[in-house]
């Protein structure tokens, strides 16, 4: 794996070059009320590359938008219906300044999106996008990437990983896309010189997160498989409002709803919208019966899906330890705590 270095100025310059050549540049940028969000920027100066905050929402929405049209319909006289497919030509995009946990989230999603059926809109966007991550120094006590087999310097999902060093970054080329980006903008890069510094940065960051992160969550799968009805669920569910803020900010929650929206008497659009297993109506049947009739079962579902069901099917935890759900939860739900409790119950596994 070859590496180079790039100065802060050149990184912003690179962003400007890309914008100049009509490429969409997405990155963390200040939004109103001191909040940071990933968004397509009009100028490199908008980018807020190294935090300290984590963008409020993950990168997920650039591949699986909160809402997207699938097709429009128009009903004509005589019972005939005309359909218009949504066009799928996502703009070529480079993400600059992705957090490793968010980049990893996208790779985790690839599994389910490309599994029994290949989700065209998703992969069209995926292919059109290059992800340049910046290794993270660790945000706060809600981070636990080290507990899910990742870390503040995780490379999964990234095409290029930038590790902060004196005056700039050490750029580790991880994929073909990454290589193409570098070769396409040679002028912005310098030969590698920061290996040691980068290594030090990574170690400090890992140590910072590991200091408070719960044990490794990967071994929990077997305990979860056999403890569907454990009293733990009723207990942890108490605070939950069933709002789904956790799923909205989660880089890996990917459930969606399909709705037909009339936009007139004869016209309408079928859309795909984010949904979440945390609301009661997620599982309610047409009959009115709801197999997940209380919040215990919904919370259990969220934990089970992330740490048992998904791993079972894809050998992959559906969580990148970004900690957004913990930060966002109005009820004070705490996934780190749940992992610790389950680990303890599972006999201190991991």
């Amino acid at each position, binding site marked *: 794996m070859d590496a180079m270095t790039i100065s802060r100025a050149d990184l912003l310059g690179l962003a400007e070059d890309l914008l100049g050549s009509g490429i969409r540049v997405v990155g963390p940028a200040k*939004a*109103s*009320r001191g*909040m940071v*969000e990933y968004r397509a920027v009009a100028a490199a100066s908008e980018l807020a590359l190294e935090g300290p905050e984590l963008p*409020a*929402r993950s990168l997920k*929405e650039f591949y699986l938008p*909160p*809402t997207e049209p699938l097709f429009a319909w128009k009903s004509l006289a005589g019972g005939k219906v005309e359909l218009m497919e949504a066009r799928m030509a996502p703009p070529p995009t480079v993400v600059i300044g992705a957090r490793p946990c968010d980049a990893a989230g996208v790779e985790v999603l690839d599994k389910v999106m490309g599994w029994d059926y290949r989700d065209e809109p998703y992969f069209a966007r995926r292919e059109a996008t290059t992800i340049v991550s910046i290794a993270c120094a660790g945000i706060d*006590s*809600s981070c636990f990437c080290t507990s899910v087999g990742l870390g503040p310097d995780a490379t999964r999902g990234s095409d290029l990983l930038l590790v902060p060093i004196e005056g700039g970054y050490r750029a580790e080329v991880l994929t073909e896309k990454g290589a193409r980006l570098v070769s396409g903008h040679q002028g912005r890069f310098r030969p590698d010189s920061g290996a040691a510094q980068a290594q030090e940065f990574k170690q400090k960051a890992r140590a910072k997160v590991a200091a408070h992160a719960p044990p490794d969550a990967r071994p929990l799968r077997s305990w979860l498989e056999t403890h569907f009805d454990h009293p733990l669920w*009723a207990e942890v*569910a*108490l*605070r939950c*409002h*069933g*709002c*789904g*803020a956790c*799923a*909205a*900010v989660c880089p890996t929650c990917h459930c969606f*709803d399909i*709705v037909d*929206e*009339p936009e007139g008497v004869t016209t309408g659009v079928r*859309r795909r*919208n*984010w949904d*979440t297993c945390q*609301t009661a*109506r997620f599982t309610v049947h047409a009959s009115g019966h709801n197999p997940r*009739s*209380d*919040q*215990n079962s919904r919370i259990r579902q969220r934990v089970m899906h992330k740490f048992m069901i998904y791993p079972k099917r894809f050998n992959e935890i559906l969580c990148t330890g970004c900690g*957004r759900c*913990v930060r*966002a939860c*109005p*009820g*004070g739900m*705490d996934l*780190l*705590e749940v992992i610790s409790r389950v680990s303890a119950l599972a006999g201190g596994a991991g």
Partner: protein
Amino acid sequence: MTELRELARKLLSDGQVKVVIGYEEGPRGVRPLFATDGAAADRLIFDERCVQNLATYLDRRRVHVARLGKPAIVAKPCDVKAVAGLLRETQLKREDVVIIGVRCGGVLADPKSLQRLGPDTMADRCRTCETREPGLVDYLVGPMPEAVRGQSGRDAKIAELDAMTPEERWSFWQKELSRCTRCQACRQVCPLCYCDRCMADKTEPQWIESSPHPRGILAWHLIRAIHLAGRCVDCGECERACPVSIPLGLITRKVAQVVAQRFQHHPTDDPSVPSPIGTWRSDDPQEFIL
């Protein structure tokens, strides 16, 4: 603190209640506590980080909480107003809850906050709140706090918006609302959003589109404000719960100002005071009607 814990232990031990819903020190800031025994009761705390409005947990639809049995609830003045709302709207019977009122001099904006309470760190809604001592309570604990008051950035912002042109206001709100994903956190934490089937989840007809496109987002926040008109107790939970920091408090506050000024109605902990929507006066102002 000991006062609160002893009271909770007593209520639990002599079987008056099965659970005391209060606050505890969580791993990352203050969070709700559901104390069902004396040991848990000793974890109860109350301080300026106890931001959450626990009245939300009294909704009978929260079966997983209801299952615990008759609750006592630790409630600040604004929380008690929410309880009064539930009583007023027949969502709760007075005898089915024990209210432990806490005197309140305002709280911080965020239960995870490490700041000390002051005019600038206090939650904006508390800066204009007059109520220090809740009514309607069964027990009242805590010392009477000195009234910390501050300038309401919220009211200033409303005034600023009112001074704008419609187009400017429109683009301000479109920008703020563009972050909404319709996660419904604002609805779920609201103690007075308790419908079995929210209007926004009704599909025949679908007045409020579920899609988080700007049209559906605007419709949702409009209808939410309308349904809360005269009912909102300004506990600030919707704004706090919003994971993308939409200034929802501006909307609820604006509507509250309209309701107060037109109908002389203010949030109250007296369940017998009818909500201004559903009542009327023949001399209600109608300067806007031709």
